């Protein structure tokens, strides 16, 4: 018999599990039925036996026109939901012609400065028939409103729109770094979005509470779900404090996790997360609507586990990671392209990533039965163990005063960075095997030509902005921005004056700057 191994969360994995490991384990309490409390086995009764998960590939680069072409191609290849990547200036609320945007325009996603770019981005894509996920956080309200405005132009009512905005600014402070405003006004904006969507865009997922980026920054599986669910609790508290009934907004909350190559612990993680969230919503917040207790989530395969060395090997890693997400009961999945550690995906690598999901969905038998690992000695034991570890970490955050108070003390970031450093040292020493990197290397790597973004895009976007500013009614823009600033100083919902400003063709950067003047910006106490 081999030795006891340690899992990514630092928990023991025994060489053998048996009935004795589940002696006091009650299936009725721990599992329940699929589609019923505590949702360990999945949020829907039939899961993939009815239809597979949504295959949602994150894509976008360069100009709106180029990204539009990529989306149309993905739809033609069978993708079932769009996922928009914005460039960093857009994500940080800067226009393409801002000094700080220099060199970044169109690089990691599409540049959207105004309604005019958004119109091009969704040209000939019927917004009543696709669901669109937008990875946008601090300026999430703006991009959602631009989407709504474009839909209105297409003749599509807001009540027909489906999709998700990431809108999870707390994890930006912890891991991803694209924050703008301090926590307090940021949380107010989140509550305003919940309220606005309830009234205007009822089928929209108002937030995607994300552990993915924490995992990419180094969080263990237990840390990932603990910190994410603690963020979720903070959002629910904020909305309740703003006067909303928990069952009025909680059904539209969604989550976003990573899938690593350590398949067993990942399956356990997803199952544990569902169980914790259901309990928190029912016990702590008194939710009555079952939909408020269901942890619905998107998964992306772990980009950080992909290697620049022998990049084709990443196809295999992604297949294993994707399988973990499916066995864990994900609602939608992005599989990374094999060239992720080198550059943005090419057309071919993006297609192969989607094909990987199609093989899982249509060639394997894992979709034939719900929650295939239920009752497995090891997976049930690990589900309990990950749950216990996560609940302990959540209690620590609670003791610190909740997620925001813990963020302000740097608690989560510090925990994650220590884990990242440990992983780096284990990889250096060879204790942690990374195929092609510290074992089975090639003497000479084959050359690889990645996709490149045309640097001329920055100048093109600047020209578009100059034309926009010359043609629009500037006094209407100024008036709308002043009205928005006034609202930001009061308590009215900000999305209505924001929509007026965007309709008058104010830019994303202008709207964010108007709010920066009122709210200031977040400056972390950053150490290492």
């Amino acid at each position, binding site marked *: 018999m081999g030795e006891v191994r340690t899992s990514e969360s630092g928990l023991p994995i025994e060489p053998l599990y048996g009935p004795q490991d589940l002696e006091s384990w009650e299936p009725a309490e721990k599992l329940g039925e699929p589609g019923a409390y505590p949702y360990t086995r999945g949020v829907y009764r039939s899961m993939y036996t009815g239809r597979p998960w949504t295959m949602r590939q994150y894509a976008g680069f360069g100009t709106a026109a180029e990204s539009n072409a990529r989306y149309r191609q993905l739809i033609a290849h069978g993708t079932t939901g769009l996922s928009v990547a914005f460039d960093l200036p857009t994500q940080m609320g800067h226009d393409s012609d801002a*000094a700080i945007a220099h060199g970044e325009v169109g690089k*990691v996603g599409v540049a959207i400065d105004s309604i005019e770019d958004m119109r091009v981005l969704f040209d000939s894509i019927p917004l009543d028939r696709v669901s669109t996920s937008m990875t946008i956080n601090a300026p999430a309200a703006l991009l959602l409103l631009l989407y709504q405005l474009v839909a209105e132009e297409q003749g599509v009512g807001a009540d027909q729109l489906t999709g998700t905005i990431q809108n999870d600014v707390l994890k930006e402070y912890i891991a991803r770094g*694209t924050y703008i405003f301090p926590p307090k006004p940021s949380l107010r904006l989140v509550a305003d979005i919940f309220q606005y969507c309830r009234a205007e865009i009822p089928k929209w997922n108002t937030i995607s509470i994300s552990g993915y980026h924490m995992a990419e920054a180094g969080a263990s599986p237990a840390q990932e779900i603990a910190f994410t669910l603690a963020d979720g609790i903070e959002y629910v508290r904020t909305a309740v404090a703003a006067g909303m009934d928990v069952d009025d907004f909680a059904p539209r909350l969604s989550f976003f996790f990573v899938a690593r190559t350590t398949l067993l612990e990942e399956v356990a993680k997803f199952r544990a997360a569902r169980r914790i969230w259901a309990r928190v919503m029912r016990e702590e917040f008194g939710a009555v609507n079952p939909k408020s207790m269901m942890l619905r989530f998107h998964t992306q395969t772990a980009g950080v586990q992909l290697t*620049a060395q022998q990049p084709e090997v990443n196809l295999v890693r992604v297949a294993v990671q994707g399988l973990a997400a499916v066995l864990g009961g994900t609602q939608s999945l992005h599989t990374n392209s094999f060239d992720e550690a080198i550059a943005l995906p090419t057309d071919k690598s993006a297609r192969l990533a989607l094909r990987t999901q199609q093989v899982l969905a249509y060639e394997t038998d894992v979709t034939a039965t719900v929650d295939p690992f239920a009752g497995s000695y090891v997976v049930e034991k690990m589900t309990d163990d990950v749950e216990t570890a996560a609940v302990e970490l959540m209690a620590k955050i609670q003791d610190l005063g909740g997620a925001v108070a813990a963020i302000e003390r740097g608690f989560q970031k510090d925990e994650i960075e220590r884990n990242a450093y440990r992983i780096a040292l284990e990889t250096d020493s060879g204790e942690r095997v990374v195929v092609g990197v510290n074992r089975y290397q090639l003497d000479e790597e084959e*050359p690889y030509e990645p996709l490149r973004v045309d640097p001329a895009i920055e100048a093109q976007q600047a020209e578009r902005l100059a034309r926009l500013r010359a043609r629009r009614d500037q006094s209407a823009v100024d008036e709308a921005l002043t009205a928005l600033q006034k609202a930001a100083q009061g308590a009215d919902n900000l999305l209505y004056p924001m929509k007026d400003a965007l309709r008058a063709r104010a830019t994303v950067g202008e709207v964010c700057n108007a709010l920066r003047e009122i709210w200031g910006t977040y400056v972390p106490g950053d150490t*290492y």
Partner: protein
Amino acid sequence: MPTETSAVPIRVVVAKPGLDGHDRGAKVIARALRDAGVEVIYTGLHQTPRQIVDTAIQEDVDAIGLSVLSGAHMTLFADVLRLLGEEGAEDITVFGGGIIPEADIDALHRMGVAALFTPGTPTHVVTEWVRDSMRVSGRA
């Protein structure tokens, strides 16, 4: 072992230029350099090339390590090198890391970037390079 390294520690600014928020690599390298006895000043996120160069000069460092994963490396490395030149601070070595395609690495070397470390590089390779090249430069 040369004794001068312990007498006058090497000082390095580790910086995240531009809007990229991915700081895992920067933080791991900052910790590894610190554990190797290097004095590290970490700038935090969202620094302009001007801010980074000003910090490097004020802190009297031997080198600047830039981490870029957003694809903006050609612009950001060039701006830092240009500003160092304008300030007469060419003696500060510039190195870096991130997601940087092979072809750009050659161009960046020609531009004056002393070394680039891409994903998969063991941390000791970076720390040893910093110690060795700073010793050669005569500062340490």
